[in-house]
């Protein structure tokens, strides 16, 4: 043991040791509170980390351990340690910061546990030292290696240190009422240098779908492999019933209640529901039924077509295809922007990205509320720089010269 050159057993002991130190820290100091490293502490830590790394690199001739840290076997053990710990994380339910109790060992909040984070720091240090060793002296042929290693180094370091500076706030808005306050995950209200005024919330829906359900259980039929029929398909068959769509109204309201018969007419205002006139024919018995069905809205109840004692034809609630908010954004620099925010298309202003998050689900397409998420991540450009390096490195891997063993 501990004879030079070190082998796997020594490296595994080092990996275990780092994790053990992490566990001791967890017991004595308690869970990591990431908010403590918010700016400027994270910048100081970054400088410190790089300074330590460069010093270790310079002293690698004198200190054997520092030399080992950029060795392939060390990389294998460092990555394996982190993988094993991440595997534990994948197997256990993670409850996030909420359960990061100062005195818990952190199995359910591993991102706040010293024994998870410390091996990551160790891996990042090994990674940085390896990248440094291959960068000085510079050889053009090592470029893919540098991009892969420096890229991951930048991503790991900046994403971790930058996480404390990320602001993520939710802001519900209503038409015509500019809002400048937003709530963070802990429920604290923040006043922002920008205000959002909702002009209009719009939702497009997919055409309604028809299905047959069991009258007692409500489960879609055939059980286990339910069939549906798009209203735009106009004609189809589910189980023994041939279904024909005679009329489809996208905006409708029920009228003329005559005994049990409900009829729907076109109606274009708030609360309108989808409705369809259906003819259902049983292919075995030739029994024919006709009637209106509707999925209902917050204003009107749904309406089903009872086919027999056991089953009914129903219209499922329409799935949203697209929802967006037309907004005006005011800044404290007295600038006004107009734009549309939708899922996958956030709006950027003054370092904030504004996302379409939610709406009043109860009211669906008639929602008068639109909730936005506002995210500010000052370290994003650095993380993206690392990601682009990794992408370039991945292409380099792809084009790699074959079979050249590198150590």
């Amino acid at each position: 043991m501990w004879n030079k050159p070190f082998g796997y057993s020594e490296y595994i002991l080092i990996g275990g040791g780092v994790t053990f130190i992490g566990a001791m820290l967890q017991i004595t100091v308690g869970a990591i509170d990431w908010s403590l490293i918010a700016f400027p502490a994270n910048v100081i830590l970054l400088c410190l980390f790089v300074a330590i790394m460069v010093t270790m690199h310079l002293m690698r001739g004198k200190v054997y351990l520092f030399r080992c840290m950029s060795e392939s076997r060390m990389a294998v053990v460092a990555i394996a340690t982190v993988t094993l710990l991440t595997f534990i994380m994948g197997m256990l339910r993670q409850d996030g910061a909420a359960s990061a109790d100062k005195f818990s060992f952190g199995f359910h909040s591993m991102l706040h546990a010293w024994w998870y984070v410390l091996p990551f720091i160790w891996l990042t240090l090994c990674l940085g030292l390896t990248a440094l060793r291959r960068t000085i002296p510079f050889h053009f042929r090592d470029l893919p290696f540098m991009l892969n290693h420096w890229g991951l180094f930048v991503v790991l370091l900046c994403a971790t240190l930058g996480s404390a500076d990320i602001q993520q706030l939710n802001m519900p808005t209503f038409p015509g009422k500019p809002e400048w306050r937003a709530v963070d995950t802990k429920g604290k209200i923040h006043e922002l240098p920008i205000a959002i005024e909702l002009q209009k919330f719009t939702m497009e829906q997919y055409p309604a779908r028809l299905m047959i359900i069991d009258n007692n259980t409500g489960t879609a039929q055939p059980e286990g492999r339910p069939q549906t029929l798009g209203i735009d398909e106009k004609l189809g068959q589910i189980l023994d019933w041939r279904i024909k769509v005679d009329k489809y109204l996208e905006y409708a309201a029920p009228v003329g209640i005559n005994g049990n018969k409900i009829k729907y007419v076109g109606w274009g205002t708030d609360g309108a529901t989808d409705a369809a006139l259906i003819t259902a024919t049983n292919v075995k018995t030739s029994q024919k039924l006709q009637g209106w069905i509707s999925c209902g809205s917050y204003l009107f109840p749904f309406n089903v077509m009872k086919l027999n004692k056991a089953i009914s034809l129903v219209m499922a609630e329409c799935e949203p295809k697209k929802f967006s908010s037309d907004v005006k954004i005011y800044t404290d620099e007295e600038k006004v922007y107009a734009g549309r925010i939708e899922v996958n298309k956030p709006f950027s202003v003054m370092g904030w990205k504004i996302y379409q998050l939610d709406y009043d689900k109860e009211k669906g397409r008639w929602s008068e509320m639109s909730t936005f998420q506002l995210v500010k991540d000052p370290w994003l450009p650095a993380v993206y720089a690392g990601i682009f390096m990794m992408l370039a490195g991945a292409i380099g891997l792809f084009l790699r010269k074959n079979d050249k063993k590198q150590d």
Partner: protein
Amino acid sequence: MWNYFIIFAVVAVVLWIIGSVASYRQSKPWLIYGATSLGIAVFLFYIILLWMQLSRPPLRTMGETRLWYSLFLPLAGMATYMRRKYRWVIGFGTLLAIVFICINILKPDIQSKSLMPALQSPWFAPHVIVYMFAYALFGVAALSAIYIQWKKQGDMHGCDDLVYLGFSFLTIGMLFGAFWAKEAWGNYWAWDPKETWAAITWFTYLIYIHYRQVGSSSPRTATILLVVAFVFLQVCWWGINYLPAAQNMSMHTYNLG
């Protein structure tokens, strides 16, 4: 369209088997490459038809991702054959493709045209297709490694090729996912269970790559690593839906409906 799947699948599989047998018997190259490529073309043609019928990329349900996987497997096998001339490798790609085609025949997912707003993104198709290609390469790599160990013949260089290529695609798929997540959810990485398992898989292949750099690496350990990594990959792809720790926790749940 889904009802016609079996016809296209059978034609493609027959062509792939012809290609596999031809390569195993070291027949004429035109027969090996011709039959395998034609099978791939037939299968791809079906995917394109399905795409047109659904009016969206067929990448949403598990069944749809399995289609791409089955498409890429023989392609990965053929690419390895071109480079390394392992006569059994197209056969392995075909074998694994048949397994996933059978799953699709026995358990087709409900095909609906709808695509929820979060999936309507230019990143959707590249993210999933690149991942599926990586998965196919890793599948062939794992089977090849087991075969090499079992027969005690050949070296691991072919597996290295597959892993390097697969790893570059895996990395690209993951990073595309990060860009997309930032646009859709506001975070490029959130340690969602799917992301955690993607990290586990990515790290395990990274161990393999570094392990093979060490001069004295044992092919046996390398093979074990490839098999373990492949199991992790399956957990990440679909096994996660059955993991108690990941129930109702993941944002990546579009493929369940």
